[in-house]
């Protein structure tokens, strides 16, 4: 992947050169203009790579997942064959690649990428589309969960707005993992861009087509969620086909730019107090969905920790060097919690946001933390929700024991509950909890932490009774 990145950069450099040349030759005949034009060649893979096409697998993928198959084909002499690995394949955990043409192509005359496909079994390709070039991915298009069957079928991936694609590099890309742990094979043939003339009735959407209301804070930028940016067309088959479209296909607008500005990449920048509505159009069609943003001030961060770093083992804090963390949300079975760590101000302020909280863990198992010399856990928690009398927040610590691994009979755990009287809405609550106070059994049924060794602490768990969204900051152990 590094290689290709470099290649992309080289390409931009080249473009710069072309422009420079064009400028210096401004008075030349118009032949020079043609020089900068991109080919409109529609073919991606018919019976071989089209001119300029490259194969670049994703890092971590099975590098040889793609091959040319002369036996199985829809038409002509061969097809593209993709071997999705089994779970645990040492060659790579998934199949995925991009097929760019770094010469660039003018695809503005087409309305869809089409291909014929079949598979060894009915399957669902996780992601497939075009516009991915290991660079900006400016006009990335992703069709999620494409169902394929064991018979050759034609598939149509519509272009959200063809007029944007005058110099596109990303001809085709896909990513697919094992299905229920099992690999399989699928084939693609006659992969090309077409002007079908039947890609119609556009219905773009932002924010998943919903009208949202949200609070924003001065100086804290937000991003319009990529997965909620879609374009839907009705195809000749009568099917409504929805793809995820990159922000650059959209024209965003803010009804009050003195409150929030929105960039062409969908970055929301709150700049003043008041309210504003964020809407968008795609190809002149108003997108369904909007966000009404209220800006009432700046975001109040948790108090900056002042303890001496020598007395601290930090899991998550901008004030200290943190231990390696596996993840801030393990997405365990039975868990409804979404969210995790987010960067609020680049390189300066990070917090954890958990939404729809029932329980969630921040895990640090590589390596586990030796907290045997520590006496307290510090956590800052904040919720904007009204605290009702039955509401509570539970913190748990899990120690994996001498084997440093989950299970094995040596795990210990302990919890402590903070009830409504301990909680307050709209302000940071700083908790300094003696480790021996983690005396309750955990939701997972573990006990023995409070009096245990605490030499292989691996998880901090947050659980909620009645509170949906919490902010978390400055998780660290310290000794006193």
């Amino acid at each position, binding site marked *: 992947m590094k290689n290709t990145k470099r290649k992309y950069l080289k390409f931009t450099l080249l473009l710069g050169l072309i422009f420079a040349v064009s400028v210096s030759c401004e008075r030349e005949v118009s032949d020079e203009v043609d020089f900068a034009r991109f080919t409109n060649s529609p073919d991606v893979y018919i019976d071989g790579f089209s001119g300029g096409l490259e194969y670049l697998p994703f890092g971590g993928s099975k590098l040889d997942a793609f091959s040319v198959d002369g036996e199985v084909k829809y038409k002509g002499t061969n097809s593209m064959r993709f071997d999705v690995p089994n779970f645990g394949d040492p060659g790579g955990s998934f199949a995925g690649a991009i097929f760019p043409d770094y010469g660039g192509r003018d695809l503005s005359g087409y309305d869809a990428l089409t291909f014929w496909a079949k598979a060894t079994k009915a399957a669902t390709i996780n992601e497939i589309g075009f516009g991915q070039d290991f660079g900006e991915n400016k006009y990335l298009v992703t069709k999620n969960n494409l169902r394929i069957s064991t018979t050759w079928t034609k598939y149509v991936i519509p272009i959200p707005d063809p007029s944007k694609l005058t110099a596109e590099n990303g001809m085709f890309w896909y990513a697919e993992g094992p299905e229920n742990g099992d690999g399989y094979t699928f084939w693609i043939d006659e992969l090309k861009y077409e*002007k*079908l*003339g*039947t890609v*119609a*009735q556009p*219905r773009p959407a932002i924010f998943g087509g919903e009208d949202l209301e949200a609070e924003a804070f001065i100086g804290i930028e937000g991003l319009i969620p990529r997965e909620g940016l879609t374009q839907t067309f*009705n195809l*000749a088959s*009568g*099917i*409504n086909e929805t793809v995820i479209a990159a922000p650059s296909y959209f024209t965003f607008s803010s009804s009050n730019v003195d409150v929030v500005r929105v960039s062409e990449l969908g970055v929301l920048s709150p700049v003043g107090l008041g309210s504003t509505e964020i809407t968008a159009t795609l190809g002149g069609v108003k997108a369904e969905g909007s966000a009404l943003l209220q800006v009432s001030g700046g975001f109040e961060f948790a108090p900056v920790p002042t303890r001496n770093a020598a007395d601290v083992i930090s899991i998550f804090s901008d004030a200290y060097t943190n231990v390696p963390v596996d993840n801030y949300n393990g997405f365990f079975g039975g868990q409804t919690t979404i969210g995790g760590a987010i960067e609020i101000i680049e390189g300066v302020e990070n917090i954890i946001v958990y939404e729809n909280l029932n329980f969630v863990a921040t895990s640090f198992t590589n390596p586990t933390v030796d907290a045997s010399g520590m006496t307290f856990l510090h956590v800052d928690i904040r919720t904007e929700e009204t605290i009702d009398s039955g509401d509570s927040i539970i913190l748990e610590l899990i120690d994996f024991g001498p084997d440093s691994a989950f299970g094995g009979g040596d795990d210990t755990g302990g919890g402590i509950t903070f009830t409504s009287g301990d909680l307050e809405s709209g302000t940071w609550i700083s908790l300094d909890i003696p480790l021996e106070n983690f005396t309750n059994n955990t939701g997972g049924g573990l006990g023995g932490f409070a009096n245990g060794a605490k030499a292989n602490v691996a998880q901090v768990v947050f659980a909620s009774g009645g509170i949906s969204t919490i902010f978390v900051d400055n998780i660290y152990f310290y000794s006193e």
Partner: protein
Amino acid sequence: MKKKLIPQWYSASEWRTLSIIKGFLLSTLFITTFGCAVDDTQTVTNFTQLTMQDEFDTDGAPNSNIWGYDIGNGPNEDGWGNQELQYYTDRPENVTINNGVMIITAREESFQGSEYTSARLLTKDKFSQTYGRFEARIRVPYGQGMWPAFWMLGVQDSPSEIWPFIGEIDIMEMRGQDPTKLIGSVHGPGYSGGEAISKEYVFQNDRLDTGFHIYGIEWGPDYVNHYVDDVLYNQITPEDLPEGAEWVFDNDFYILINVAVGGTFVGSPNTETVFPQTMLVDYVRVYEYNGLN
């Protein structure tokens, strides 16, 4: 000049071949034109003397001198014999003229026990004609379960004469889930419903719901020619009927325009169907049969 001559290759399924032959035919045509006067060439329409036209140029309700309404869900409350799901009304929410087009709107709303509303206009007892050219410029709705139509029924000889004996000519109908397929048909005794004499015309690199198209028939003694835009895609003559079946297209017919929702012909709308849906009618024009063709 035989207008009944519909070459065999004017079949929608062989459109690709057709374009080639058409090109060939065109060059032939030029030669022929130079050579002498009129000859055996494909003409889409022949009749040019207007007998009725509605250009829908006055905003508001349609002209009551031309158009009446079917209201409700059918005389037998069976969705007009097709298990259609809409309740027809004459409310502006379902039919109105705006900016030079008549807009029929199919809505998803609970109304008089139905889940959808729409409109069906007809010229019964106001305008009918035997033979001639009947055409309308229409943009159809789309989506699973939408069933727009521009069609005609024969005036009853007596109250006891019922469908299909009165005859039916479908100038344009389509299934919203098949946005590229136009269907033109005739129905009569022994060839009605699923047995109608019918032909599909598939638009190539285009579809019915994205723009206006002209749908029409030219109808004379012993033939009905179906055309769309500048393409004559079918001719039906008594020879196309089942053996012994009666040709019931030699008397006055009136015009109907409607958008049905659901029913046996299209199936019900589903969660993918977008509502409301509109059919736009730019004009309806009728020309008299000139007896020459």
